[in-house]
């Protein structure tokens, strides 16, 4: 029997079938956002206090990174107890209060669920490794040799030499796709599947709206395969989805599977597996296209992206808590990205670049706006990583990915308004440099300025939310001869939006073939100004450096 404990009961938001399609997701780590009790670490009390900010920004959902008890050797992705809250972040009651407050504001809550592995401190693993006869022995993947599943790549190649680690206690090897302190659960064992469903049910009963399921391609291992994306893994996932739909309809499942689009497609199944999946290969190509001043990388990957069932959606992001992953690019592209965006090798981690959005874009406001413009207008649900809406910087001298997980910068005062604790006691040093430090970049000062990045982000989110086209509409690329211009038509029902992005640092002229929309006028969606009617000739637009337009087409 699982105790739900005290705390405010959450009002469950109306379970609209496809709320996730029109959502604006704000990704935040509890630890990083706001410290409610003055101990130097962000917590649920603090997060609850800042929900107004999230609401004002226009976000309709929050995605929380792991907040469960954990030795924190992988920032919480090494869970040692699935049904509680890490002491650093408060109590389960604090979580419930936060959840209720979020729902009061119409903000849905998506939490992280790490299905693939646990911490080696988790009681299940402690039991499992205690002896080869332990009843939980088969909850993890054990072997007498470290030669099985040779076809599986090593993901954390900077730190791990093998996917097997020797356990001196039970004198055998255990399987781990990530760090060696994160043993993989054995999903061939029905007891494991049942228990993980119970874990999910626990949080669903509290009222959460969705899960971001971590590392889903790796649930099952089979000899002679890459141990990724196996049919048996999909079976496990479909089984979970079936249970979610039956008992908690309207819950959204988001897949974290860093794969090529064609390999990702099966995760949507026939609309019976995941509702959403991250489009990992698109993100680096947006950065690449911007720097190359060429739409090719973007259109190429989107053209390779298969159709997905109508109930499903891609999740798009510019940056997140991890490195800018370069796994899903060619060697030529990866070399280019490193040279352009991470010339300093300290910025590199695994196969990626551990930097935030603003520093990646040289703090160039026009490029930041253009990238956000594409994020908001390409097909998918956008995710904003906390702090990127104000142009926060990073600290590449902090280890692992901690450089992009520094305290949120609320104002120019003590600890940037994040905590009242001594600066030395913060979970991470705040950013202090003159360009990105909290005296310069903070919420308070940007709130007071109508032309700040924060104000602009609120505006673009408002416009994005003013129409369902961006969330649910179709996309059709135009192919103007000017390759520096990325143009597409988004359409839903009778509503049509034309998006034109100039990826270049210089002004551009572009002629668009809009003949099938002849007779329509264009209404620019930010300023509401009218542009000339579409006629017989190609539609000529001149665009400033990194400028983008969103036009609503109207037949008047």
């Amino acid at each position, binding site marked *: 029997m699982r105790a739900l404990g005290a705390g405010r009961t959450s009002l469950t938001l109306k379970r609209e079938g496809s709320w996730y399609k029109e959502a604006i997701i704000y990704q935040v780590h509890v630890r990083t956002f706001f410290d409610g009790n003055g101990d130097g670490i962000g917590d649920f009390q603090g997060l609850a206090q800042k929900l107004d900010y999230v609401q004002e920004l226009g976000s309709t959902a929050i995605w929380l990174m792991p907040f469960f008890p954990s030795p924190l050797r992988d920032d919480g992705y090494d869970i040692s107890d699935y049904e509680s809250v890490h002491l650093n972040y408060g109590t389960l009651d604090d979580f419930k209060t936060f959840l209720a407050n979020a729902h009061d504001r119409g903000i849905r809550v998506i939490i992280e669920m790490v299905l693939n592995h646990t911490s080696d401190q988790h009681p299940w693993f402690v039991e499992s490794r205690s002896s080869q006869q332990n009843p939980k022995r088969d909850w993890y993947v054990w072997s007498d040799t470290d030669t099985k599943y040779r076809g599986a790549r090593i993901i954390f190649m900077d730190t791990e030499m093998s996917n097997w680690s020797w356990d001196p206690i039970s004198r055998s090897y255990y399987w781990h796709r990530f760090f060696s302190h994160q043993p993989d659960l054995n999903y061939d064992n029905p007891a494991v599947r049942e228990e993980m469903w119970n874990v999910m049910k626990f949080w669903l009963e509290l009222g959460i709206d969705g899960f971001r399921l971590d590392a889903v391609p790796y649930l099952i291992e089979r000899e002679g395969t890459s141990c990724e994306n196996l049919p048996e893994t999909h079976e496990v996932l479909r089984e979970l989805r079936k249970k979610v739909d039956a008992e908690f309809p309207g819950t959204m499942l988001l897949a974290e599977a860093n794969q090529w689009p064609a390999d990702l497609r099966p995760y949507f199944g026939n609309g019976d597996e995941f509702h959403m999946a991250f489009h990992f290969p698109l993100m680096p190509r947006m950065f*690449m296209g911007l720097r*190359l*001043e*060429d*739409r*090719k*990388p973007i259109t190429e990957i989107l053209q390779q992206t298969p159709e997905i069932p109508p109930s499903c959606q891609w999740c798009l992001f510019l940056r997140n808590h991890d490195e800018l992953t370069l796994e899903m690019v*060619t060697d*030529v*592209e990866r070399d*280019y990205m490193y040279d352009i965006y991470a010339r300093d090798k300290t910025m590199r981690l695994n196969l990626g670049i551990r930097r935030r959005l603003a520093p990646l874009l040289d703090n160039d406001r026009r490029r930041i706006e253009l990238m956000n413009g594409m994020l908001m207008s390409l097909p998918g649900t956008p995710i904003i990583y906390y702090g990127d809406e104000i142009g926060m910087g990073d600290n590449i001298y902090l280890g692992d990915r901690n450089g992009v997980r520094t305290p949120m910068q609320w104002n120019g005062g003590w600890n940037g308004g994040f905590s009242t604790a001594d600066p030395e006691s913060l979970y991470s040093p705040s950013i202090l440099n003159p360009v990105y430090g909290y005296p310069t970049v903070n919420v308070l000062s940007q709130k007071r300025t109508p032309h700040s990045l924060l104000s602009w982000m609120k505006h673009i989110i408002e416009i994005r939310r003013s129409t369902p086209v961006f969330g649910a509409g179709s996309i059709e690329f135009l192919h*103007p*001869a*000017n*390759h*520096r211009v990325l143009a597409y038509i988004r359409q839903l029902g009778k509503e049509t939006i034309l998006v034109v992005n100039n990826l*270049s640092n*210089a002004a*551009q*002229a*572009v*002629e668009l073939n809009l003949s099938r929309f002849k007779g329509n006028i264009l209404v620019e969606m930010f300023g509401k100004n009218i542009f000339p009617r579409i006629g017989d000739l190609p539609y000529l637009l001149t665009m400033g450096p990194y400028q983008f337009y969103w036009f609503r087409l109207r037949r008047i």
Partner: protein
Amino acid sequence: MQFKFCLEAELAEEALLTDEFLRQLMNVGEVDILIGLPTHNNSKTIAPVIRAIQAGILKCFPRERAVIINADGGSQDGTPEIVTGASIDDVWSASKVYALRTLHSISTRYARTPEPGTALRTILAAADLLRAKACVLISPEATTIQPEWVQRLLRPVYNDGFDLVAPLYCREKFEGLLMRNLLYPMTRAIYGYRIHEPYASEFAVSSRLATDFLNQELWNDEWGRIGAEIFLTTTAITGQYRVCQVFLGPKAPATHRSASDIVAAMRRTVGALFFTLDQNFSDWNTITGSQPVSTSGDPCNVKSEMVRVNRKHLRDMFAAGVAQLEPVFRSILLPSTLSELQRIARFEVREFKYSADLWARTTFEFAAAYHKSVINRDHIIQALVPLYRGRSLAFLLENGDGSNDDIENNVESVCCEFERLKPYLLEIWANGK
């Protein structure tokens, strides 16, 4: 009002690039590298050339912004369509070279009939407008082209600061006779630089040389339209631009050419070279000897195939020319030179000799006559054709069993003769024959 009219007329006359081409250039935007392909009915050879260029760009300059520009002189065989239709996907599937960027291939028709100089000007004007850092020209008949050619031609300009990259080819033994016997030795002796291919069909130029060259006054002359390549070389030399040579590899043998082709080729090359002497006298008259040019790459040997040349026919054309054009030669050549030519014209093939000394004297006297316009300049060039045939025959005979090295030594000795006799040219240049 009248002034305005004149200005408009002038502007209208100077519209080298069509509006449609300008629109295409706008879409391409600024580039780092421009590859120019002057074409005219090259549909049989152009496709592999394009593929090699694309592969060269993708392999060696994957990050650079590049464009392939075809300047077509009125092809009727679909050549421009082959250029614009060439897809980099073909390169990708053939060589697994991945394209990071869009690679444009665009085409413009600059005239209804081919004019090599206008094609070059069109390509350089596009390079200038697109601010290309380096521009390469490739012949559409370069069927021996390898993707590496693109790198070899571009890198000295793009990375090493050279302004003109001239090619060096591995030629069949008896290919390039005009280059080996006249254009190279004479350019070398006159301008003092050992550029083996002063009139090249493949070369690379820097943006600053291209811009300077575009601003020359030659474009409205006939030479600008038909023989601009040699002006490019002389502009680079006289402007003290940095020049180098690179070995490219085997050059495709010339396809069969008729007698009228040789006359046209002589006009385009030798005529243009003679014309530059007039233009640049103050630059070359004090130069003595010659200096080597920075050269890179590996020379290679071409296995020579048996060349079938009708030697008797060559001798007969030479002898007939000497006889028939005697009145013309009297106005061009010194009596001693003419008399010597008449003497050798009586030789049968097996004893035929046309020495480097006599050949150099002949050529210089023609150049001086051209300078003074002793008769119609066009006729002067045409009159040189039978003599060139005689020298070609002598070259064939001198090198019949020679190795490639022997031939190169022979060419070197011809060059030395030209250099030795340069004072003679200066003398007749000033004083007449």
